[in-house]
C-alpha cells in the first residue's frame, strides 16, 4: 500500500514497514493489524509522525510504533525511537509533557467477596484521601523548595524515608525509582513552584486509581511469581509528574527550539525540537527530565501509600492481613540511556518511549531478582469498564523494539465527541450497572473517559502477545475507580 510518496509493506503478521525514503534516516515500523492500518491510512497523521521520527539525527534501526499508535504531537503516541548516545539527538517531544507518566500495580490479600460489601466505603475513602482533578494539591504537606530538590535527587526513596511505603518497594520500580542524573539546578523556579504541593495527587484526564479484581490468568507460573491469583483484589494507579513535568517539558522545548537552529538540525516538526545528546542543551534536558521522572515515581509511591491507608481504614485490618505489596511500576513517557544490540554489537542509545512501555526479558540485569525467571512486568491499562492487562517483557522485544511494547488502548473518540455522546446519560449509573463504582470531581471527565471512547485494549495486547513482544499473564477487571 501507499502513503503519499511512501510505500508501506506488510513484512510479518501484524507488522508493517515503510522503507527508508527521501529524508528518512531509517525505516519506520508499525505493529498493527491490516484493519488497523487501514484506519491509520485514513487518519494520516500517526503514519506521518512515525515517518518524521525516522528523520531524527542518529536514529538507530527503525522509528517504531506500537499497535496503540495514534496522533500525538511530534512523536506519535505509541512511538519508540533509539538514538545514538554519542552522535544522536534527544527530543523532549519524544517524552512528552507528562514526563514519566506511568502505571503502578499493587496486590492485596483480599478477594472480591471480601471487598464487595465495603466497596462504596473504600471508594469514598480513596476519593477523600487522594486529591484528584485539575490543580489538585496538598495530599501531603506542601514541600519547601529545598525539600522538593531533595526529592528530585533521591527519587522514590525520598517518599519511603518520609514513611510512604517500604524500602523493599524500590526493587519493584523501573530504575529503582530514581534516575541518577537528576539536577534540580536545571529546573526552573516555576517548575519547582508547581511541584511543591502536587506530590501524591492524581490529576485529571485519563489518570486514575482503580480497584481491580484479577479476572483471568493466562500464565499461571508467572502469575504465581508475581503474587497474582484469580479473584484477587489489586490496585492500579495511572498518573505522572503533574504540573512539574509539564513545566519542565515546556521550558526545554524553548531551549531545544534554539538548539536545533544552533546545531543545524533539520526537523520536520517544531515539536520534534532536539539537541545532540552530548551537547550542553541535551545534557541539561536529561538532568531536568530525570528530576521530573523522580517526581513522578514519588507521586505514585505516595498515592500507593495513601491507598493502603484507605484500605486499612475501610476494613479495620492490620497491614499484614491486607498484604499490600507493590508488584511493579512502569514508565511509558521517558527517554533513557540503555544498551541494545545493533548489528550484533552492544550499543549505547537514548531510547525515547512516548506512550510505550519498557518490556525487558527474563535474565535482564535491570529487572528485580524476584522476576529474573519470568521477565519484567508490563502494565497495560484499558478503559474503566472493560479490563487492563499484566504482561511480561521478552527477548523478542529486545531484538525488535528496543525492549518496548504498547502502553494502553488508544482513544477511539475525541473528547469532544465523547462528551456529546455522554449528554443526557447517567454514566455513573451505567458504570455501576456494569459493576464499576466511579467517583470523579467532574462529570465532563467521566464523559470524556467513558468506555466507548476507547478501543478494546485486548486487540492491542493480543498483537504484542502474538508477535512475542510482550506476553499475557493476567487480565484485571475494574470494580471501582477514582478520577479527576
Amino acid at each position, binding site marked *: 500500500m501507499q502513503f503519499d510518496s511512501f510505500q508501506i509493506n506488510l513484512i510479518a503478521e501484524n507488522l508493517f514497514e515503510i522503507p527508508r525514503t527521501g529524508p528518512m534516516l531509517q525505516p519506520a515500523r508499525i505493529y498493527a493489524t491490516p484493519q488497523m492500518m487501514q484506519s491509520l491510512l485514513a487518519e494520516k497523521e500517526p503514519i506521518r509522525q512515525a515517518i518524521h521520527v525516522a528523520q531524527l539525527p542518529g536514529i538507530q534501526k527503525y522509528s517504531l510504533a506500537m499497535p496503540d499508535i495514534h496522533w*500525538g504531537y*511530534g512523536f506519535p503516541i505509541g512511538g519508540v525511537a533509539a538514538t545514538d548516545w554519542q552522535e544522536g539527538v534527544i527530543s523532549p517531544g519524544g517524552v512528552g509533557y*507528562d514526563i514519566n507518566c506511568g502505571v503502578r500495580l499493587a496486590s492485596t490479600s483480599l478477594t472480591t467477596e471480601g471487598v464487595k460489601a465495603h466497596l462504596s466505603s473504600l471508594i469514598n475513602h480513596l476519593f477523600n484521601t487522594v486529591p484528584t*482533578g*485539575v*490543580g489538585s494539591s496538598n495530599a501531603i504537606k506542601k514541600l519547601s523548595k529545598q525539600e522538593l530538590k531533595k526529592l528530585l535527587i533521591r527519587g522514590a526513596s525520598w517518599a519511603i524515608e518520609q514513611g510512604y511505603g517500604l524500602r523493599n518497594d524500590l526493587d519493584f520500580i523501573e530504575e529503582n525509582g530514581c534516575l541518577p542524573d537528576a539536577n534540580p539546578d536545571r529546573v526552573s523556579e516555576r517548575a519547582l513552584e508547581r511541584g511543591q504541593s502536587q506530590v501524591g495527587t492524581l490529576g485529571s484526564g485519563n489518570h486514575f486509581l482503580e480497584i481491580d479484581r484479577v479476572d483471568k490468568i493466562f500464565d499461571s507460573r508467572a502469575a504465581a511469581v508475581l503474587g497474582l491469583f484469580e479473584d484477587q483484589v489489586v490496585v492500579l494507579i495511572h498518573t505522572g509528574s503533574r504540573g512539574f513535568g509539564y513545566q519542565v517539558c515546556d521550558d526545554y522545548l*524553548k531551549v531545544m*527550539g534554539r538548539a536545533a537552529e544552533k546545531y543545524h538540525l533539520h526537523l520536520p*516538526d517544531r515539536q520534534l525540537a532536539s539537541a545532540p545528546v552530548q551537547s550542553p542543551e541535551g545534557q541539561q534536558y536529561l538532568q531536568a527530565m530525570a528530576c521530573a521522572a523522580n517526581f513522578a515515581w514519588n507521586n505514585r509511591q505516595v498515592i500507593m501509600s495513601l491507598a493502603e491507608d484507605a484500605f486499612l481504614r475501610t476494613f479495620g485490618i492490620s497491614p499484614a492481613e491486607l498484604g499490600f505489596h507493590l508488584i511493579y511500576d512502569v514508565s511509558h513517557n521517558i527517554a533513557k540511556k540503555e544498551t541494545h544490540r545493533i548489528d550484533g554489537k552492544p550499543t549505547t542509545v537514548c531510547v525515547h518511549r512516548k506512550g510505550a512501555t519498557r518490556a525487558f526479558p527474563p535474565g535482564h540485569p535491570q529487572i528485580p531478582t524476584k522476576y529474573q525467571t519470568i521477565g519484567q512486568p508490563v502494565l497495560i491499562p484499558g478503559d474503566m469498564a472493560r479490563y487492563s492487562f499484566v504482561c511480561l517483557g521478552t527477548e523478542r522485544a529486545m531484538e525488535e523494539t528496543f525492549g518496548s511494547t504498547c502502553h494502553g488502548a*488508544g482513544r477511539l473518540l475525541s473528547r469532544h465527541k465523547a462528551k456529546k455522546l455522554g449528554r443526557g446519560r447517567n454514566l455513573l449509573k451505567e458504570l455501576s450497572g456494569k459493576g464499576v463504582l466511579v467517583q470523579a470531581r467532574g462529570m465532563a471527565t467521566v464523559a470524556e473517559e467513558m468506555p466507548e471512547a476507547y478501543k478494546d485494549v485486548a486487540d492491542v495486547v493480543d498483537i504484542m502477545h502474538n508477535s512475542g513482544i510482550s506476553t499475557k499473564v493476567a487480565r484485571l477487571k475494574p470494580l471501582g475507580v477514582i478520577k479527576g
Partner: protein
Amino acid sequence: MEKSGNYFHLINHTADAAFDIRADSLENLFTEAAKSMYSLLFEELPASSSQKTDLALSAYSVEELLVSFLNELLYLISVKKRILYPIILLKIDSTEKSIRLNCRAGSHKISARKLARLTEIKAVTYHQLNIKRTDKGFYTRLVFDL
C-alpha cells in the same frame, strides 16, 4: 473560500484537541487562540471584571510567543486559580532580538472546586504550529495536549 474576520474552528483530533485559527491581525490571532483554549475549559466565559492584570512576555519567535502566552494563561488557571478574560488590550511588537507581548485583561478568581472539575490541558504544543500570513490576515493550527 477563506472567511474574513476572527474565529477558531475545532478540528477532529482523537487524543488531544486541535484548532484552526484565523484573524485579521496578529494580535487578534493571539486573542482567538486564547478563546479557543478557554472553549475547552469553560462553557461560559466571565463578563468584564473590575480587577485587571497585565502580562508582559518576550520570545525568540512569534510561535514561541504564542505558546508562552497560552501556557501563561494555563499556569494562571491551574496554579493561581485565576482566569484572565476578557482580553482588553493586546500589543505585539518586535525588536531585532525578540518579539514582545503586552496584554491587559480582566482577572477572575476560580474556586478550587470548579477548577478540579475542568478538563485538564497539560500544555500548548508546537506541533504543526506555524503562523502564516494569508490574504485575509493570519492563520495557524494549534494543538493542545490533554
